[in-house]
């Protein structure tokens, strides 16, 4: 498995783990009544605004650990480590295609979230659908990246 493929796989795992743990914590606090849930929009604004920095910092830490781990493994195997984050035209093309896929999937997720409101569902469902769409988007984008690296573009 190449560096880019491992990186995408790490991204998928980190998205699942970070979102999973955060969702669990929020759900537990929500269950015991730690949040003011009288205003649904305020509740979700707080939940999402806290999640953004947590997600960014966690991903940075995971990617640093991943880069160190990869460099250590490559050095141990006697491989050169100088071009780990080198990006060329093929990488840019794959990134572009993965971004296109992620935009399509998130758009569909957004439409699904709007549909929940059109069918007068609970406001919580709207935000949960958006978050699920975000997670699926990220996973699909990384999976597409892996497939493009494996099968070619």
């Amino acid at each position, binding site marked *: 498995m190449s560096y880019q493929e491992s990186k995408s796989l790490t991204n998928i795992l980190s998205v699942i783990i970070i979102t999973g743990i955060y969702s669990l914590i929020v759900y537990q606090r929500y269950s015991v009544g730690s949040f003011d849930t009288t205003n649904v929009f305020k509740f979700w604004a707080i939940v999402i605004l806290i999640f953004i920095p947590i997600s960014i910092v966690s991903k940075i830490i995971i990617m640093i650990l991943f880069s160190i781990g990869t460099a250590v493994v490559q050095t141990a195997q006697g491989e050169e480590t100088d071009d780990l984050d080198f990006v060329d*035209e*093929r*990488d840019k093309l794959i990134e572009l295609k993965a971004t296109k896929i992620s935009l399509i999937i998130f758009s569909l997720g957004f439409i699904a979230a709007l549909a929940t409101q059109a069918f007068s569902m609970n406001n919580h469902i709207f935000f949960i659908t958006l978050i699920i769409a975000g997670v699926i988007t990220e996973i699909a984008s990384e999976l597409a990246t892996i497939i493009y690296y494996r099968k070619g573009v």
Partner: protein
Amino acid sequence: MKKLLINNNVRKLRFLNDEMTQKDLSLKVDVSRQTIVAIEKGQYSPTLELCFKIAIVFNKTIDEVFYVETPEKEEK
């Protein structure tokens, strides 16, 4: 028009050029080794600029390095 099957002689030309490694070629044309691997396997069609760069490294013209593979059925 059908999608063209573009193939190349990069692997052959590397060996004819003092058994140049994929890493050496990648450094000369400023791409990653994985991209050279993908080009050789036919998994990636490089941009015109990269085609020129590779041809220049081997001191060949582009059509000596890259060619369109014509299916035998169409030739008949």
